[in-house]
């Protein structure tokens, strides 16, 4: 580590206080307002949101956001605070969901008042067993073992005891969450339930973070040897981190299973694990607010991509955001945008004059974006092959943008933006489910390279 980096981080407070304008206001607010009013504000906003007249699709997305937020909070305990790379986390989510499913269907049908605590404690115990493993192996080896715990979970629910666990076909027709004769039957009910769970959890986790245990976790994360030297019982602390995280993940699983009223092995694949990690790292590992924000952003983003209109907002919005954040000075940014717009319209006109069929297709975007771009992007009548070629060109172009010299960058940027738009309108938007995955991948890489600490995380120096 070059000399000076630590000092730079150490001066964070000084630089912050010396800031001006909105940055300073934000920092002051952050320093003055204590944690519980902030939590209360978030909770009230959540309640107010449910008062809007929402269609059931939006309700579903809202519930999923909360579930992912809870999942990210649980993952944050092991990964963000204790620094244990737990790649089997999705197994805890699955254990919670399957636990709920088994206990509230078939011929058992327990009340949720019994099911949820049993599942919660049971998964905490399971987590503790996995935590014991973390004592045997550390670092990357822990990641490897837990990754395979996740895969083994999938294999178990797929193949073992199909009578109880349903095998590949899953379990369905689960009871809703019920207690004392009442049950939650509407999506809105689940929204409130998940919101309350989330708020209570955030409060408790905040207290935990500031307790001795929380400090011990961070000590283990920063330097296990030093922590041990300071008489912190590192073994117990690590087991606790994984076990607590597991219990929180299981809680999310119970809500998920009850609300979906079905569980399937495919609900707990490695892809879901990646999504949960995306929530956490996007929001910022180690930060409670970040985990929740990440959960909301990832779920809403994923949903937006599957609707052509919203996907357009997301795609063009992200590009603009990236440009505003990265291209300086403003003059260059303006020139790049103007050149892309004018150049595109001109190119469209020229191509149209040469061969009308080359511009015969209509852009995939609906609504006003579709109208706006229809004389700008080139979409031929049969766009699949054309779109595929553009897609490869786009990858090459993005690569070029990253690699070329600073001074040449604006010139490469203009065709890249145009290719991106043409490819989006002719190909990507046609396959929303695939495009969503590509975008998630791109966002993960982009966020990690541009801001490894995530949206709300704080930069920390790793001791090497």
């Amino acid at each position, binding site marked *: *580590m070059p000399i000076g980096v630590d000092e730079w981080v150490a001066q964070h407070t000084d630089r912050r206080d010396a800031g001006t304008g909105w940055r300073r206001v934000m920092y002051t607010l952050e320093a003055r307002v204590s944690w519980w009013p902030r939590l209360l504000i978030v909770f009230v906003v959540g309640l107010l949101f449910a008062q809007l007249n929402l269609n059931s699709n939006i309700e579903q997305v809202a519930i999923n956001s909360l579930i992912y937020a809870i999942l990210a909070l649980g993952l944050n305990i092991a*990964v963000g605070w204790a620094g244990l*790379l737990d790649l089997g986390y999705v197994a805890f989510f699955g254990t919670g969901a399957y636990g709920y499913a088994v206990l509230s269907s078939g011929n058992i049908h327990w009340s949720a008042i019994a099911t949820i605590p049993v599942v919660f404690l049971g998964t905490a115990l399971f987590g503790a067993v996995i935590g014991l*493993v973390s004592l*045997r*192996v550390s*670092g*990357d*080896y822990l*990641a*490897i*073992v837990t990754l*395979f*715990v996740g*895969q*083994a979970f999938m*294999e*178990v629910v797929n*193949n*073992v005891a199909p009578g109880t666990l349903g095998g590949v076909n899953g379990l369905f027709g689960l009871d809703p969450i019920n207690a004392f004769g009442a049950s939650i039957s509407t999506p809105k009910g689940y929204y409130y339930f998940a919101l309350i769970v989330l708020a209570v959890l955030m409060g408790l986790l905040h207290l935990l973070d500031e307790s001795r245990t929380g400090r011990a976790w961070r000590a283990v994360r920063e330097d296990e*040897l030093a922590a041990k030297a300071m008489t912190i019982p590192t073994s117990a602390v690590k087991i606790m981190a994984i076990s607590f995280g597991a219990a929180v993940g299981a809680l999310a699983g119970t809500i998920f299973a009850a609300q979906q009223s079905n569980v399937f092995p495919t609900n707990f694949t*490695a892809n879901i694990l*990646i999504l949960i*990690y*995306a929530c956490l*790292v996007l929001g910022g*590992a180690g930060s409670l607010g970040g985990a929740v924000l990440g959960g909301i952003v990832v779920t809403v983003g994923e949903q937006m991509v599957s609707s052509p209109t919203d996907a357009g907002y997301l795609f063009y919005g992200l590009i603009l955001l990236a440009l505003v954040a990265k291209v300086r000075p403003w003059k260059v940014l303006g020139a790049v945008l103007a050149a892309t717009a004018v150049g595109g319209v001109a190119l469209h006109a020229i191509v149209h004059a040469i061969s009308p069929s080359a511009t015969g297709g209509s852009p995939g975007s609906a609504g006003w974006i579709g109208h706006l771009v229809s004389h700008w992007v080139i979409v031929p009548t049969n766009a699949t092959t054309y779109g*595929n070629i553009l*897609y*490869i060109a786009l*990858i090459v172009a993005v*690569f070029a943008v*990253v*690699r070329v010299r600073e001074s040449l960058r604006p010139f490469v940027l203009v065709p890249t933006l145009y290719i991106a738009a043409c490819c989006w309108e002719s*190909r*990507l938007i046609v*396959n929303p489910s*695939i*495009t969503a*995955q*590509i975008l*998630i*991948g*791109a*966002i*993960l*890489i982009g966020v*990690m*390279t541009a801001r*490894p600490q995530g949206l709300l995380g704080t930069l*920390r120096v*790793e001791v090497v």
Partner: protein
Amino acid sequence: MHELIQTIVNGLTTGFLYALIALGYTMVYGVLQLLNFAHGDVYMIGAYIGYFVIQWFGGPTALSIPVPLLVAIMFVISALGTGVLGVAIERFAYRPLRNAPRIAPLITALGVSFILENSVLLLFGGFTKSYNTNEFISFNTGIHIGAIDIDSVQITIFIVSILMMYGLIQLVDRTTLGKSMRAVASDREAAEMLGINVDRVISYTFFIGSAMAGVAGVMSGLAFNQISATIGFLAGLKAFTAAVVGGIGSIPGAMIGGLFIGICEAFAASYISSKYTDLIVFGILIAVMLVRPTGIFGRPALQKV
């Protein structure tokens, strides 16, 4: 008896593929301490490159060149293509994060894996594509002793894999590049101070590792015909298991691990139930990790304070 031998042959066929993929995992881990989760997808891309080479030369029923030449060209083009892809992935997704927290490159690796798999889905569709190997390499070529059949594709896989592994060991042990690799693996900063161009060594490592995965992809297409965008994940996972069981970072470990996993799978499918093969393999992994956390051939990691 012949059943037993045939099962071993089946297991070796898959095992050599796992071993070749595992070598890439292990080499990258050796020099960068990075778990390159995108490696399985590089293997998948290699299989697709091989497929398009067959189509380019007229398709399985109307080949314009002799079959041995075709197979050689498939190996070479696929190795070059995936090698370049591997270097590009490293340059683009891992190098900017050389000094970031450990979790960051892991996340970008997952991102790259997402992009590769879904790009193939987007460009070539979700259909499985078939090499139709039996239409240009007959099952009757090869060795047949009694009821034991080793066809020429399997023989090719065995020979090419062994040659590549031998070549790799020679490269690592005997050449300057190999020496630099070992230097970077044991201490990157010290190697840099001694004037080794660390970035270049890492690029070469990615090239070689990915090229071997590409060759494995072509072999998988030749031996098993069906390729699709999703074959990378499970094969990657199995190869990764192999690398870890053998001791991640160890080259002989990855080879032995790959063959071991392949044979275990074949025996599990033959004599227990193919339902439980994955569970058995992952069980072996977790057991090995608990008994010997650094794998069979791995050296215990020195913790620097």
